[in-house]
């Protein structure tokens, strides 16, 4: 069963090659665009340092889940159980964080996430269980176990209850006040591009939790390990062609196992971040589907850490806009989506075919109509923004991307030759 692009949905386009130059150009372009939008609409909160800081906090858990998914899928194991591993992480942070201390909370989160990973690894790698089934099972078990253990651990503890832990002490944060203050002043001037840049830098230099720094570093570390070391090459070969790897004497089972363990640890860390930085307690239902959204970010990022970071940023941003701006801001996003769809439709006409382009254009027009007919989106519905965004991202990008060639396929030793 293929996770993403499947043979019935038309031929896959060849992998797009994006050079570093284009990336910088793209980022610069986005900055200019948003700056313009801000000045034109007067919505200075669009990219204020407050918004950007919140975006960072929202993006990191999604990114950690996605990074976990990346490690696992690069070794050929699909990991739907990230949500469950994340839930275990939130509990780990809550339990160890409250009873021992914040750093123990971090370690606890990672360890408990890894337990979930171990379960998935044993099922898929040792026993060859279908990856999706195992992932779903891990989610069920993780949820049940967490609720069970939470009830045991936190009932009767002051400030806690069966569904939440008491407050956890905060981890240290970093503020480079020498830079942060002048940046703040620059931002308040609302100048074109300069102030936006100041806001970006400001968000990165004040009130930054060490855990955030750690997590961001992990993106770079993952890239280096997976693409620049022998360990990483071997791991990736297990996801591209385990038969080739085995024929060269590589212990494919070991690498897959490790990858899934790492995957669980990363997801657990994401959960820990949720409990300790995004909030200050463990709470039942805290993860809210971020494990799955992380997978979408990974797919969006074409299974590379850089793209994943961008994707997580995107999801974090839309979620932040929803929380800070409410129905009206999301309403504004509708116009953006409509415009984007129409542009896509124009581009599709040249590549894919009339019918596909027509459908995209029709959806774009429908969204535009919705925008003009309504004033804002009801508060009840804004909650679904991250999930609708996920669907949209997947619908637009699933087909153009290239997952590791042997992703999701069962592997048995001795299949070489």
């Amino acid at each position, binding site marked *: 069963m293929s996770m993403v692009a499947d043979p019935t949905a038309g*031929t896959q386009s*060849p992998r797009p090659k994006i050079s570093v130059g284009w990336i910088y150009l793209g980022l610069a372009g986005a900055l200019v665009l948003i700056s313009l939008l801000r000045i034109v609409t007067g919505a200075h909160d669009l990219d204020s340092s407050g918004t950007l800081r919140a975006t960072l906090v929202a993006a990191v858990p999604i990114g950690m889940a996605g990074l976990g998914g990346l490690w696992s899928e690069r070794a050929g194991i699909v990991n739907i159980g990230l949500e469950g591993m994340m839930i275990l992480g939130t509990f780990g942070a809550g339990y160890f964080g409250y009873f021992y201390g914040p750093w123990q909370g971090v370690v606890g989160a990672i360890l408990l996430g890894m337990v979930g990973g171990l379960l998935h690894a044993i099922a898929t790698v040792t026993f060859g269980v279908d990856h999706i089934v195992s992932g779903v099972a891990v989610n069920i078990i993780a949820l049940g176990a967490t609720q069970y253990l939470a009830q045991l651990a936190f009932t009767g503890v002051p400030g806690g209850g069966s569904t939440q832990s008491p407050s956890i002490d905060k981890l240290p944060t970093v503020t480079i006040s020498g830079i942060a203050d002048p940046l703040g002043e620059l931002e308040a001037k609302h100048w074109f591009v300069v102030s936006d840049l100041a806001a970006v830098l400001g968000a990165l230099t004040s009130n930054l939790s060490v855990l955030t720094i750690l997590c961001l570093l992990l993106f770079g570390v993952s890239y280096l390990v997976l693409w620049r070391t022998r360990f990483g*090459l071997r791991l990736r*070969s297990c996801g591209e*062609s385990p038969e*080739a*790897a085995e024929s060269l004497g590589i212990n494919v089972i070991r690498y897959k196992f490790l990858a899934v363990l790492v995957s669980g640890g990363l997801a657990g860390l994401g959960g820990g971040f949720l409990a300790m930085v995004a909030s200050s307690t463990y709470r039942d239902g805290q993860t809210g589907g971020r494990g799955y959204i992380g997978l979408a970010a990974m797919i969006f990022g074409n299974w590379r850490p850089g793209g994943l970071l961008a994707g997580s940023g995107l999801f974090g941003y839309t979620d932040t806009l929803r929380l800070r701006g409410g129905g009206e801001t999301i309403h504004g996003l509708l116009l953006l989506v409509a415009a984007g769809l129409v542009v896509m439709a124009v581009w599709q006409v040249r590549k894919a075919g009339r019918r596909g382009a027509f459908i995209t254009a029709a959806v774009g027009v429908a969204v535009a109509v919705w925008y003009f007919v309504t004033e804002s989106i009801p508060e009840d519905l804004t909650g679904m923004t991250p999930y609708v965004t996920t669907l949209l991202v997947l619908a637009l990008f699933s087909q153009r991307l290239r997952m590791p060639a042997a992703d999701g396929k069962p592997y048995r030793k*001795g299949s070489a*030759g």
Partner: protein
Amino acid sequence: MSTLTSPTAEPTESAAGHDVVVRLRDIGKTFPGVVANQDVNIDIRRGTVHAIVGENGAGKSTLMKILYGVQKPDSGTIEVNGEVISLSSPSDAIGAGIGMVFQHFMLADNLTVLENVVLGAEKLHGIGDGAREVIREISTAYGLDVDPDVLVEELGVGARQRVEILKVLYRGARIVILDEPTAVLVPQEVEELFGNLRELKAEGLAVIFISHKLDEVLSVADEVTVIRRGRTVDTLPAASVTSRQLAEMMVGSELPSPSTEESTVTERVVLEVRDLTLPAPQGRDLLSDIDLSIRAGEILGIAGVEGNGQSELVESIMGMRQPSSGVVTLDGRDISSLSTRERRDAGIGYIPEDRHRHGLLLDAPLWENRILGHQTREPNIAGPLIDRGGARRDTERIVAEFDVRTPGIDTTARALSGGNQQKLIVGREMAGDPVLLIASHPTRGVDVGAQSAIWGHIKRARRQGLAVLLISADLDELIGLSDTIRVLLRGRLGETFDPDTVTPQMLGSAMTGAAS
């Protein structure tokens, strides 16, 4: 079992002068229900090309997997350089200086040549510039012409094979095993490969060469070992034996040959394809302006190197791919806009090239596999329901008529051998009484007995007026069965050849586009 030098031999290049580098003694291996190897004894000498021949399923591949550490033998010993060694994984074999080029390439498409070569051997020269240098050196020294930074998926078949050879040499192999290396090559590429092998031999390496193509084997090997039913029959110098003799040793009896009899071609055109074009997402069209026609009682053979459009042609005619232009008519009726099911109902039978992926439900019983592809017709159905009894009865009939060796029709397809699976498929497709049969590599991976049976069925059907589109990489099969042969190159149909006058060399040139 005799081992070496027959007394009448007068080898020009005396293999006897070289040291024995690998010695297999009494090797045995059994899988559940199958004895793959038994009492196998072979001596391989340094500086020679040693061929191992046998029909499909004789046990050659298993033997080589044992030598490469992928399988452990149940009995017997392996000696390398005079020492008995135990191999429990490919790394042990690599450590002993053994390298293997598999029949199905072990390459990761999304990685570069460099990454594929250094994988597992990163200790030797690292994974960066050092490795790159060494790869370039080996490539030049042996004439392999390989660029380390190209993605493997961009390489053609011959180039990929050379990457596999380079992988083996990179690790310092002194014993190189090649499993059916010429299965995917045309005659000119085969000559290039043999040139490479002679260079390896000159450097003192031992080359073990597994094949069932006897003429090729005799042109490059110094010694030949014949394996039949898992046992070694004999080992002889290549110069002292003919391919006919080898073939008889392989099968143990008279060999069937696909020779044609008198022509059964009629006037009535069954399949006509005009101006068929299938574009690719990028670049050259997969198929351009295909024009062909097949008459009742005629077999049209399509020759071509894999990747030149054969699968696409078959899938377009079957309705599994949508061409951008062109017309397909069956018995005068335009079927270009019909679905695959409708085309099958109109009378097209299809033997797919990959029976495991396209022809069978491996975990379903045989009688359900009988229904596959024919879900809209008797005797499988009664209205919208499946007629279980009817399907089962007809499956019994097919099993009997087509000699499918199985204990019963409830056995799952996976449990049958390749030849029996293929015989079932042939029987099933013929049962629909088709007017056109598309046979794509119909005897690939099938033992000699099943092969001749399948040829017999096709020829019998042809006598009764069946039109056949035959795709095959086996030039002997093409020449032997076809009434007309055409070559498919880069998506275009080229010259027409008469099987009575064509030679494999002529076909080979046309298939690769070399000047003829």
